[in-house]
């Protein structure tokens, strides 16, 4: 399939979906349009709601707050996880002791932590950062742990035979190997940072995309809920695209990133 055909088909899917949405909410095929509009809003209402947000500039503040929360959750979570992952991977006995607790902590659905974090850190950004942290931490942690454990044996022995000290091995062998695992999970972990921020906002806050959606929902403003969802998914797509760009720069040495 050529690129233009593919792109045309992809656009066509959106056009058909919106057209269906429009037909259902404007005609009486499925019943009273006014009733259906209450549950599904209409494409035009949602569109004008988004335009209104951007025109008034109100949306930027919310986007910015969500972005900051997600970024902080990702950076703090990733750094903490890398330190913990390295530390435990190099100390198998300690890792064995902590193993059941790490698994138990990871098994806990993180949403239940949100009320506690709100109590501890208040309604501001830090309770959302904490929620995002608990999501990001485990993904990065397991990847670093695996990366250090599964360093290629020959590469390691070769580096030793070349005369590397433990510190040099850490810098030139263990760290790059672990980082390649962290990068391969970058899409997932950054996605989770955003999830943590938005869910935290939804459950209790005064700003952010999650707050916007929760507010609209509270007033039965379905157009607002849908508009918030569309902005959110565009926001995540944009971040994901940025991650792909960074990845291409940093992982040139990997065979499958050779586009």
């Amino acid at each position: 399939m050529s690129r233009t055909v593919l792109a045309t088909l992809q656009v066509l899917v959106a056009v058909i979906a919106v057209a269906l949405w429009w037909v259902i909410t404007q005609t009486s095929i499925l019943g009273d349009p006014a009733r259906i509009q209450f549950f599904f809003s209409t494409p035009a209402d949602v569109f004008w709601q988004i335009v209104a947000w951007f025109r008034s500039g109100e949306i930027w503040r919310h986007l910015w707050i969500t972005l900051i929360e997600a970024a902080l959750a990702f950076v703090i979570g990733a750094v903490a996880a890398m330190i913990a992952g390295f530390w435990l991977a190099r100390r198998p006995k300690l890792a064995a002791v902590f193993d059941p607790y790490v698994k138990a902590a990871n098994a806990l659905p993180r949403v239940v932590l949100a009320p506690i974090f709100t109590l501890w850190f208040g309604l501001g950004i830090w309770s959302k950062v904490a929620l995002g942290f608990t999501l990001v931490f485990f993904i990065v942690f397991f990847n670093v742990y695996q990366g250090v454990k599964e360093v290629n044996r020959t590469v390691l022995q070769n580096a030793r035979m070349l005369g590397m000290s433990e510190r040099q091995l850490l810098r030139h062998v263990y760290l790059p190997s672990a980082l390649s695992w962290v990068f391969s999970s970058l899409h997932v972990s950054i996605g989770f940072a955003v999830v943590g921020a938005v869910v935290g906002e939804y459950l209790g806050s005064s700003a952010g995309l999650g707050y916007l959606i929760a507010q609209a929902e509270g007033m039965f403003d379905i157009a607002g809920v849908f508009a918030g969802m569309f902005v959110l998914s565009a926001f995540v797509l944009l971040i994901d695209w940025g991650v792909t760009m960074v990845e291409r720069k940093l992982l040139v040495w990997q065979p499958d990133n050779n586009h």
Partner: protein
Amino acid sequence: MQHAVRLDNVDISFGATGKSVFRAVAGANLSVAKGEFVAIVGPTGSGKSTLLNAAAGLLKPSAGTVEIQGQPLDGLNGRAGYLFQADALMPWKTSRDNVAIALEISGTPRREALERAENWLEKVGLKGFGHRYPHMLSGGQRKRVAMAQVLIRDPEILLMDEPFGPLDAQTRLIMGDLLLDLWQQDRKAVMFVTHDLEEAIALADRVVIMSTGPDAKLIGDFTIPLARPRDVSEIKLSPEFQELHRDIWHLLKEQVLKAYGNQNREERA
């Protein structure tokens, strides 16, 4: 005569003490003189690589002594360069950085290290490939980078574990010639492990044969009086080469058949 490497009555076992112990090598004696190229040939699973790893200090013998230039080996063998069978380059470094790091480790400033790495890449025939990552190179080219990485440190002893094993037949010949060419310049002591008898005779001053494991030992020691410099692909046609090959193969064949028998028995079990 001083020995570069001397293995004296070396036993190497695997498995914890008390449990079922697998003794791969038993009572092996081998010495490699300075400037001597020794090839170790044996059937699969004969413990050739195990013996080499003992000389490298990667494995500790369960009995016997390993001496490097008259001194007992303790820990890793810092005087030796080791060329592995599998890819051993750091995939996240370019070929030039892979070669330069070998010098940087011991404190050479980065600029000087990079310059000398360029020189070495040229010596192994990879001028202009310095910016490529290992995955962008062919198997033979990666071996060349690995050779440069090992040789740039100017080790006194070269340990090679079937280094050309994964390459195709033509590339092996070319790599053999390159190795001899580089070796000829300063004649390091070499321990070269291979299962390819032709390769061993074409390259080495001495070919030693290992028996099939477990409890493998060295059972044959042949001097190869072929004149140097040698051309690896041409030399195989000479009558002297073929006579040597016949003699050594006679001994090796027995071991190969024995190893093959062992394998079959294991498969049936």
